[in-house]
């Protein structure tokens, strides 16, 4: 089996705790839901239900309709904009807005990052709560304390007073999860909550979800990470093209059944073989790079030394907020950085992303909503933006040429959109991700920096992306990849580095390492830096 199973010491070992599924009466259910987006039939009569104390996985390929379904169940798509019925406790409910859903004890963690950047973490966690038993007055201290408690439950260290604008995208995601949990919901719907979390954080989240489960909360859990389904879910419903393809009981859970029911195909192996030999010349060499943390709150990165050979795939592993993204941003000229960068043995001075691109470097960013998509331009123009010079003569766009290259790019990455003129908001999350991938590939970069390249991408397409990455490597492109799923780095990379506190602390070759060893080197590094700090020796 090429698919990795759950790690031995991971959440999977708790499988026995799960109550056997003698399906109790559903707490929350959807009957014959159909939803049409101006011609696109996103859902075609879906029946779905979840019981108290159950974690129900909702699976499906990108664009299958998962997010649409939970948005209906949460009132984001208000009653009247779809057909079918929603029932809570056996009573029919029609939510006109998320406020209605919340009032009925339905919590929701959206797929895209939706936070209030100008407010503090605590204020975000309690956003929309009217009072805390104190009438209309806000007790800032109390909010901060409660938020702090929830974060320590989640096993993470986020300062409740920090402004959300200074958080990394994974931290923002955790803030959204906390925001849903403080509601003490009876039903909790999580749309890909772990897409940007790494192993440790996922485990902490699972701890919380298990506690909620024991308290009888009904949960809907959407993910593309199949091991998580094995680890925590009681039942799975697979959507395909807006219809329920199959319902799977826990007894029948295997990654193969999931993949087959989602795509109708069997997958031989998830990670392709990286056969071609790695080139000998250094495509990217970074010496003594120090990256300033943005807006003061993120630590940045210190004294980074790394090389990536042509045709080599190098990964960056680490915990949330460790500075992996910052390293990429430093190289790409997005964050202020000092140090030497060489591309193909030539020293380059990168002051801005424009310089990086001129040097043949491309970056795929992590937060597609904030840093990736241009919502004012259609799908096609989103792909070609930044790559227009080859499509123009004397600054004049050549319409035909642009169109054909867009179509080719969409086909190569299997971007599912009604047409190149479609609005990007109408694309499902995974398809948006593929669109951005198409954009960075368009320029044929020599060095490709990928920050969470498969965030929100379904298993089948993930396989496509892995194959693409390997193909690029075989063509001599140097790749530096940040991925929160360690399996991904282990399966894909020729070598991966461990980042902790903004420094590179360890390195593993292909096949080496594993969750435990990586964690151990992170802990060691943290202890060391703590010691350094208390000795007062900078």
């Amino acid at each position: 089996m090429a698919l990795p199973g759950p790690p031995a010491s991971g959440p999977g070992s708790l499988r026995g705790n799960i109550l056997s599924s003698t399906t109790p009466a559903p707490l929350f259910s959807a009957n014959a839901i159909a939803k049409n987006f101006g011609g696109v039939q996103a859902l075609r009569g879906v029946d779905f239900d979840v019981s108290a104390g159950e974690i129900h996985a909702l699976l499906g390929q990108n664009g299958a309709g998962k997010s649409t379904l939970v948005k209906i169940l949460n009132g984001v798509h208000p009653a009247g904009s779809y057909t079918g019925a929603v029932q809570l406790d056996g009573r029919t409910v029609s939510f006109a807005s998320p406020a209605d859903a919340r009032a009925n004890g339905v919590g929701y963690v959206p797929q895209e990052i939706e936070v209030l950047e100008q407010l503090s973490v605590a204020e975000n966690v309690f956003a929309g709560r009217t009072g805390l038993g104190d009438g209309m007055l806000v007790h800032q201290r109390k909010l901060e304390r409660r938020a702090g408690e929830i974060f320590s439950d989640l096993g993470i260290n986020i300062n409740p007073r920090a402004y959300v604008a200074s958080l990394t995208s994974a931290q923002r995601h955790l803030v959204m999860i906390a925001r849903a949990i403080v509601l003490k919901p009876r039903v909790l719907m999580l749309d890909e909550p772990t897409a940007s979390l790494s192993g440790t954080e996922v485990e902490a989240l699972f701890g919380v979800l298990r506690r909620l489960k024991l308290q009888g909360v009904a949960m809907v859990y959407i993910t593309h990470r199949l091991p998580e389904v094995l680890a925590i879910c009681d039942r799975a419903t697979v959507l395909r093209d807006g219809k329920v393809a199959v319902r799977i009981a826990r007894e029948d859970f295997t990654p193969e059944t999931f993949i087959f029911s989602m795509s109708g195909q069997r997958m031989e192996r998830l990670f392709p073989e990286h056969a071609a030999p790695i080139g000998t010349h250094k495509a990217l060499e970074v010496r003594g790079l120090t990256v300033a943390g943005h807006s003061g709150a993120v630590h940045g990165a210190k004294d980074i030394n790394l090389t990536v050979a042509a045709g080599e795939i190098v990964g960056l592993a680490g915990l949330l907020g460790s500075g992996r993204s910052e390293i990429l941003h430093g190289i790409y000229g997005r964050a202020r950085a000092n140090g030497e960068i060489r591309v193909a043995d030539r020293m380059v001075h990168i002051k801005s992303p424009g310089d990086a691109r001129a040097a043949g470097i491309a970056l795929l960013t992590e937060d597609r909503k904030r840093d990736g998509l241009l919502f004012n331009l259609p799908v096609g123009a989103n792909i070609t933006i930044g790559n227009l010079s080859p499509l123009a003569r004397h600054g004049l766009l050549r319409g035909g040429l642009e169109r054909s290259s867009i179509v080719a790019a969409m086909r190569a990455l299997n971007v599912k959109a009604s047409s190149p003129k479609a609005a990007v908001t109408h694309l499902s999350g995974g398809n948006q991700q593929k669109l951005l991938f198409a954009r960075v590939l368009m320029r044929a970069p020599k060095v490709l920096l990928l920050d969470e390249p498969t965030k929100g991408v379904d298993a089948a397409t993930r396989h496509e992306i892995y194959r693409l990455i390997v193909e690029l490597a075989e063509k001599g492109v140097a790749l530096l990849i940040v991925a929160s799923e360690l399996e991904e780095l282990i399966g894909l990379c020729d070598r991966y580095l461990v980042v902790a506190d903004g420094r590179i602390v360890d390195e593993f070759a292909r096949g080496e390492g594993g969750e435990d060893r990586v964690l151990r080197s992170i802990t060691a590094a943290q202890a060391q830096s703590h010691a350094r700090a208390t000795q007062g020796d900078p």
Partner: protein
Amino acid sequence: MNSAAELSSPTRDTQTLRRRLIGLIAVGEVGVLAAMALLVGFFWLMEPAFLSERNVRAILNVVSFVGIIAIGQTILLVAGEFDLSVGSVAGLSAVVAAKLMTAAALPVTVGILGGIGVGALIGLLNGLIVVRLGIPAFIQTLGMLFIGQGLIQVVTGGYPVYPLPDAINDIGATDLAFGLGWSFAFFIAAAILADFVLRRTVLGRNMYATGGNQEVAHLVGINTNAYKIGAFILVGALSAVAGMFVMADLGSGGTSIGSGWELTVIAGVVVGGVSLFGGAGTVAGGVVGILMLKVVQSGLVVIGVNSNWQQIAVGVIMVMAVGLDIVRRRYFIAGA
């Protein structure tokens, strides 16, 4: 970053002091307060009469009119919208109130309530159209600015409503203390209340959320439409109050009350750190901002700057005050 690191070696005491100072500088209103303090000091040095009772009183009096509107505009900006019709609503409410008291011979209180009602109604209309129909606030409230100006002419036939009942003139002439009247008292009370509501209540928090990111606010269950409409109504009502205070002060329901205020008010509150794009700013900041603009205008006259150059100076100082605030943020908050 580097300089901060170098500085971090001294003893604990200076460190805490430093941190406290930075904490103080980080307070939102400090930027514009500092700019204002600088200006006041400068004007006073150049011409001590600047701080004479007479001048201070004149400044405080005039700032109370636009200041009352600035309170509402700040809240509306925090909620993510803005209103260009404030001046014309002020003027319309004043002449409606004046007509009710004179032509319709109704009691003064009815006239005042009528004026406030007109303001609140226009605010409601603005809010409904912006929120429910999705017309951009710029267009709706600019349209309302024109409509209000037209209605002023229709109501008055182009002639100021004059004279007014004595009761109204008395309101304008009352000296509560230190030569300041009802308009100033109302302004201060409203400013303190509004600042408190924005800072410390759930209502205020939800207002920030609404303006910060409407989509998110909606998602977390805030009735963003209600908040926005409420803020529009508030602006309308406060504009009406301001218009009627001007009328009482001048003793005439003039047809040009409020003309040109639309940009003054927004400029003032934006100088005071309120964001044009929603979700940021405080009433204290907005009020100080507008006070600063009036201080500048008055100070330039006091120190005898040639009148042609006064407007140039106002423009330059306005930009510089905001620049100072940006520098403060960049070096003391980000770098802290």
